[in-house]
């Protein structure tokens, strides 16, 4: 059961080299559904840490939350891709190009699964670097000058960032090898957690800071973020959804692992670094969102903001950790629907600028509505699930420090105004001087899957506010205990 999660994407990866694209899109649906079912089965029967494949991989409560997130979003993206491939091929892109699309996408998902499930920090690193490489050629999929430049920035910055993360792992390996000797055992996460307070505290602290800066580059924390909006906005929309929704969480998992190790060793001040980086990220993204002119970049900055909120929640601890864990899942769904529905607009109009797109309500009735409600959801408005995550985090922040709470609250309002004002103009604004373009472009040229998948995601995201499966809630609760989160439901 556990092995299936790794084997299925790997098998799809190999088949995609030989298979025809249209045939491959059916297979991709089957693979994604099977992976999703396997993860659901694991989640339903999960009650303690499970090791598999010779101790190199394991599932605990924290990576199970991220695993559920990845497999759920991947399922929707697979259905969307089914329509996306057909629409783009009908629009004149060669089939050969899309063969590589499935190849790299499966490699991306496979390496992401490897790094999420890995028990060994070295393997986690290898998987994370492999995700950068697998997505590099997806980001430059359109082969324009902008996309190549974005890819260059992405690969160089993330590679250097992750190299600093490797330095952190070396530091950690040095401390743990004094207990377990120099073998793979000293990199095994479970063993490191067992060693706990016996580890050298100075080196652990140094390792955490290096990991925060290194993996933080890939999460998109504020001073190291400038690759993120370019890379996330240049890729094909399904890939953007995966990059924003789940890859950032995979990188965050690395920081959380180091955070956990520090917690186990009795070092508690790393949380101030998480709070600091989280707050600064929200601040920078709030000011960037207000002056954005490109709607995909807008959503990329919004991912950054949400990563900041999640980091802030983990730093605050207590009730906010539950909020952060819920936010990881809900943000992935919500950001997925935003990127997918904006992908429809992009696929039909081939226009990225906000001011060029007006009157979506007429030509894109469903997509436009999904986009509008999605933006409401991503800002944490009540009928959508992210409200729940954000209210927990904000409660935690207000409880711990009321001034910080007000600052974050004001920034969130800024972000809401920035996002909602721009999307509302796209949805309802009138384009007086360009009547001709309105006639030609309509969402009907897109494959029905492209229109309805974001809609279903929106419904799911709304439904989750009212009903969260109790097993998922249990997993989140147990995961939050690892960070000292306590709550009575």
């Amino acid at each position: 059961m556990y092995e299936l999660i790794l084997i299925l994407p790997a098998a799809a990866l190999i088949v995609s080299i030989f298979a025809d694209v249209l045939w491959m899109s059916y297979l991709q649906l089957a693979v994604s559904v099977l992976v999703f079912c396997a993860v659901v089965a694991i989640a339903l029967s999960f009650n303690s840490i499970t090791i598999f494949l010779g101790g190199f991989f394991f599932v605990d409560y924290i990576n199970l939350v991220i695993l559920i997130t990845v497999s759920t979003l991947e399922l929707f993206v697979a259905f969307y891709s089914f329509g996306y491939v057909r629409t783009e091929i009908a629009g004149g892109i060669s089939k050969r190009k899309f063969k590589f699309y499935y190849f790299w996408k499966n490699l991306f998902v496979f390496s992401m699964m490897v790094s999420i499930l890995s028990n060994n920090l070295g393997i986690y690193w290898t998987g994370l670097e492999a995700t950068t490489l697998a997505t590099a050629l997806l980001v430059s999929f359109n082969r324009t000058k902008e996309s190549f430049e974005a890819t260059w920035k992405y690969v160089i910055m993330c590679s250097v960032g992750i190299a600093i993360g490797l330095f952190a792992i070396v530091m950690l390996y040095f401390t743990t090898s004094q207990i377990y000797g120099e073998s793979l055992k000293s990199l095994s996460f479970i063993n490191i957690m067992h060693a706990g307070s016996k580890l050298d505290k100075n080196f652990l602290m140094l390792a955490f800071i290096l990991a925060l800066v290194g993996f933080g580059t890939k999460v998109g924390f504020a001073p190291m973020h400038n690759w993120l909006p370019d890379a996330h906005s240049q890729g094909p929309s399904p890939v953007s959804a995966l990059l924003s929704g789940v890859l950032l969480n995979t990188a965050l998992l690395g920081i959380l692992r180091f955070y956990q190790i520090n917690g186990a060793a009795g070092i508690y001040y790393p949380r101030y670094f998480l709070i600091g980086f989280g707050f600064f990220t929200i601040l920078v993204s709030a000011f960037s969102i207000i002056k954005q002119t490109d709607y995909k970049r807008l959503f990329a900055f919004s991912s950054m903001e949400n990563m900041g909120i999640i980091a802030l929640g983990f730093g605050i601890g207590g009730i906010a950790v539950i909020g952060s864990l819920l936010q990881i899942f809900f943000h992935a769904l919500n950001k997925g629907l935003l990127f997918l529905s904006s992908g429809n607009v992009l696929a039909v109009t081939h226009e990225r600028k906000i001011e060029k797109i007006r009157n979506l309500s007429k030509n894109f009735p469903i997509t436009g509505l999904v986009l509008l409600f999605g933006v409401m959801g991503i800002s944490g408005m009540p009928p959508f699930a992210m409200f729940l995550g954000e209210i927990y985090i904000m409660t935690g922040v207000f409880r711990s420090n009321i001034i910080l709470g007000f600052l974050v609250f004001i920034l969130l309002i800024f972000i809401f105004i920035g996002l909602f004002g721009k999307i509302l103009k796209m949805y309802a604004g009138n384009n007086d001087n360009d009547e001709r373009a309105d006639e030609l472009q309509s969402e009907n040229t897109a494959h029905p899957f492209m229109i309805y998948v974001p809609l279903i995601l929106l419904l799911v995201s709304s439904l989750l506010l009212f009903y969260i499966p109790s097993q998922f809630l249990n997993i989140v609760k147990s995961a939050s205990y690892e960070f000292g989160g306590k709550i009575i439901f």
Partner: protein
Amino acid sequence: MIMEKIAELFIILILVSVVLNVSSPFIKFAIKLYSFQSLMLAFYILMGAVHFNSINLYGSFVITVIFKVILIPYFLFKTLKKVKIDKEIDMYIGIPEAVVFAGSLTLLSNLIAQKIINTGITFGSFVFTISLATFLIGAMLMVTRKTLFSQIIGFLTIDNAIFLAANSITHGMPLLVELGVLFDLFVSILILSVLILNLRRNVAV
């Protein structure tokens, strides 16, 4: 004792090659220097392997030579031939200033290493100092030079520094992890080469 001296010589040669890299604008020379620097790193690992008689380090030596000394420089040369540039012309700070800066970074890393390293590490804090200096100078190469090739060289230098650190404070990472890291590095160089060729078609590199 004599072995430690030889190992220290290799490490000093690594630092020398990095500083030479800072002082030279020629890209072909920089790739050659990188290859040389990796070879010195490999020899250093070999010294450790002989000293501790460890299979792990022998394996590490072999894969370092294969990936860092042969494969990566080979592909970089191949890309360079297609791109047809030979000299770095766009720098944020001039060469003399950069060399002085590199020297001060070495001093700084000595100070840092003294602070955090206590005794009882493989070859003492000396190796750690050099690896930290290499790391910082590699980062400086990346931010002060504009040519894409120089950025790759800077990135590779940073990577070498981390390998050196891994081999100085411990006896190298486990072989499996090291293999994964090197393979990722190799693939990232391939992808960056592809990107350089594609960017060359659109804009000046």
